[in-house]
């Protein structure tokens, strides 16, 4: 949908009442003088009265859209994250799941890599530099599984960043939002 000028029903009044004034009147955002002017117009103009009724009900429907209630423990998780991630690192439940999945996947990859390295024909035991790096990373995860599973948010974020598996987190903001 593109931005187009508001086009309510054509007001037959002279001068016609603008849609902006009608909406602002409904929202109680006009000065007392302007509010009286709009109100007088609406009372005398069935077209604008009908338009005002539809716009009012539209606003009410948006206002009454369902709200969410957060899951239990949300505030506790936020406070804990604020306490343990002073540098601004975020470790959401999703990212923690990702790291655990990565660790599990590393077990499989390392096993397959080791098997392939010793069983491939022609050049047994010889790995490329990249393969060595990947296996070294996977072995790191394997060797530190217990640490990863018990790490606090800050440590987990640091390790994950070191392993290059998580995007950078937005930097700190001030009052400017």
């Amino acid at each position, binding site marked *: 949908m593109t931005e187009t000028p508001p086009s309510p029903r054509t007001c037959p009044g002279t001068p016609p009442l603008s849609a902006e004034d009608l*909406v602002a009147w409904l929202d109680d955002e006009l000065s007392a003088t302007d509010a009286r002017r709009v109100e007088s117009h609406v009372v005398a103009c069935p077209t604008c009265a009908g338009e005002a009724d539809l716009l009012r009900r539209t606003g009410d429907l948006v206002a009454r859209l369902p709200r969410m209630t*957060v899951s239990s423990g949300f505030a506790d998780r936020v406070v804990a994250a604020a306490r343990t991630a002073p540098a601004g690192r975020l470790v959401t439940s999703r990212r923690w799941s990702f790291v655990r999945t990565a660790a599990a996947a590393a077990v499989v990859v390392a096993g397959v890599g080791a098997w392939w390295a010793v069983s491939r024909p022609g050049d047994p035991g010889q790995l490329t530099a990249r393969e060595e790096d990947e296996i070294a990373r996977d072995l790191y995860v394997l060797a530190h599984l217990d640490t990863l599973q018990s790490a606090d948010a800050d440590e987990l974020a640091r390790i994950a960043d070191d392993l290059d598996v998580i995007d950078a987190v937005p930097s700190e903001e*001030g009052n400017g939002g």
Partner: protein
Amino acid sequence: MASEAPIRTPDDEKQAGASDVNADDDAALMIAVRGGDERAFTTLVRRWQDRIVSLANRYLRSAADAEDVSQEVFLRVHRARETYEPSAKFSTWIYRITVNASLNHIRSRKARKAVSGELRPAGDGEPGGLPEPADPNEPDPTEGPEKDELARVIREILDELPERQRTAILLNKYQGLGYEESAAAMELSIPAVKSLLTRARVAIKERLEPYLTTGEWPRERDPRA
């Protein structure tokens, strides 16, 4: 997982006189947070969590994503405690962070889709290079299968609005911010927000008009089709 709450509109809160009290309390709480009071931060999170997650969910339509983004929002608030100025209205500030974080999340999601080859062809983006709405086939976690059919239709209409119109109407009607506060949160002038709100309101009204006037959707104009 998140669930649907009893609907309490911004107007309800205004009538209850809660907004002004909360505004003072929020600033006081942030000053306490600045002084290292963890309980103040907990109170602030509990006070704002439903509103922030609900707003994020209106952009993201995923309870998990909405909570992840909301956590990011609160952590940004916490990180910025040293530089917080009580002169800045807390609600304006946190809504601005929420909108920006939600839009950034959509951009990241869009980038991931591009990498995985799921991106729609270029040229169908929103004006100004702003991000696409979430996948329209993804269910909204706040909406049930049938009783919230109208809510689903409104959600789809909102998704099709240009980004700034959608943000303006969500801040003004869904979160109950006045024109001045909406303008501050969007870093726009009040006339600009007034114009965006009018366009959004008229666009939604035109799509809903068949339902509003008859109580049901004419088959040939059914926006759900």
